[in-house]
């Protein structure tokens, strides 16, 4: 327990240092790298706090997708901040300082960290911990809560991704149904990176295989549709980076991805409606099979599939959109 607490202090202090560095460094490229480190540090912290599923997600998002998108943006907007006006905004600084102090005082009333008898541990959570292995029949309680008890939140989450994807595509490309693939000049640049291409060819199948493992192993260990979707998308994005966007689009054209993004939401929603038609409530999986536990199994499998499909196709689609947009495409005054 001492080790846990010592690590806790070290990791959190490192996080604060990284955050302050992000605030102070002017080179945007460096700050993006720092925010990748920040993501990795927080993921490590989440492992320490027993939140393995969260850590998995944070590692793939905070240290993976987010810096990747940031780098894509920096290639448009340039690397350095304008530094003519270097002023510390004193009022803002004081405001944050004062509100921080007030909050510090208030947090001393928080239930003590790590206690077993805090309200958060005592009330709703008890059922998830004690009954979910029997009620749902899968060992990973996070998956049980995510997919079944609070399955509607997760449907909302998938909807958020869908919304963002539609938004990104229409903002960057101006269309949801784009025409033919454009070939990028950058495609040829990668041709002399033989080593990268060969290693990539070795790794991509493994990455995709690992994504499937994470997808279907989420009931038993950390993982699930979201993490699997991100990993799958990473494989495709790696392919697109190494072998050119036009090749990637031949495998996964944009209209297909767009359809898949919507399809994932539809799969999720249809499982809910199926529960309704089978005589239960919306998203009630117990009525999907003859006995409740196998019904839960089936329901969770299907909705995780929906999540995976939407997430994977959205991430690839967002990557395409950032790669295909040209910053001065004359569509300023659309």
């Amino acid at each position: 327990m001492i080790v846990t607490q010592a690590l806790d202090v070290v990791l959190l202090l490192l996080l604060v240092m990284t955050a302050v560095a992000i605030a102070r460094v002017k080179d945007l490229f460096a700050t993006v790298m720092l925010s990748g480190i920040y993501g990795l540090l927080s993921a490590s912290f989440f492992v320490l706090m027993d939140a393995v599923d969260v850590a998995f997600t944070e590692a793939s998002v905070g240290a993976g997708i987010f810096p990747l998108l940031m780098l894509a943006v920096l290639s448009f907007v340039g690397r350095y901040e304008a530094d003519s006006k270097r002023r510390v905004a004193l009022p803002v600084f004081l405001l944050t300082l004062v509100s921080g102090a007030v909050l510090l005082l208030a947090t001393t009333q928080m239930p003590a960290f790590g206690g077993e008898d805090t309200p958060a541990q005592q009330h709703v959570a008890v059922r998830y911990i004690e009954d979910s292995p029997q009620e749902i029949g899968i060992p990973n309680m996070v998956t049980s809560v995510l997919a079944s008890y609070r399955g509607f939140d997760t449907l909302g989450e998938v909807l958020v991704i869908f919304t963002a994807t539609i938004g990104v595509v229409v903002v960057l490309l101006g269309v949801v149904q784009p025409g033919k693939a454009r070939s990028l000049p950058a495609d040829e640049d990668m041709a002399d990176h033989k080593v990268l291409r060969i290693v990539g060819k070795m790794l991509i199948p493994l990455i995709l295989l690992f994504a499937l493992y994470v997808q279907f192993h989420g009931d038993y260990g950390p993982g699930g549709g979201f993490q699997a979707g991100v990993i799958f998308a990473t494989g495709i994005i790696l392919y697109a980076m190494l072998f050119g966007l036009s090749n990637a689009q031949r495998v996964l054209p944009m209209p297909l991805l767009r359809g898949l993004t919507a399809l994932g939401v539809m799969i999720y929603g249809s499982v809910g409606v199926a529960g309704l038609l089978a005589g239960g409530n919306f998203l009630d999986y117990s009525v999907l099979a003859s006995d409740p536990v196998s019904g839960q199994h089936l329901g969770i499998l299907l909705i995780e599939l929906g999540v995976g499909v939407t997430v994977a196709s959205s991430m690839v689609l967002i990557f395409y959109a950032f790669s295909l947009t040209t910053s001065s495409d004359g569509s300023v005054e659309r």
Partner: protein
Amino acid sequence: MDFFNYWVVIALMMTGLYIVMAQQNLVKKLLGLNIFQTAIFILYISVAKVLGGTAPIYTESATLYSNPLPHVLILTAIVVGIATMALALALVVRIHGAYGSIEDDEIRDRSKQ
């Protein structure tokens, strides 16, 4: 020691908020927002931790588990966060194309024209 995690949460929140409000660069503001959101994640996950407990995956040997509910909430929040970031970055790219700048004050000047 009981409240150290929460103090760090507040320090991170305020750092993030400061970056969002005080920095002029649009990309930097988003990095600040990211710090702020991660601070919230740390808050929730700290609330969920039970000292001496294990990850909430049922095993024969364990009896004490950390609370799975905040984990679920934060999984959702992380996804919401990255979705927001993606949209924000798309807007930044377009703003750069339209204004030729990603500095707050310059854009404000040019908006008025």
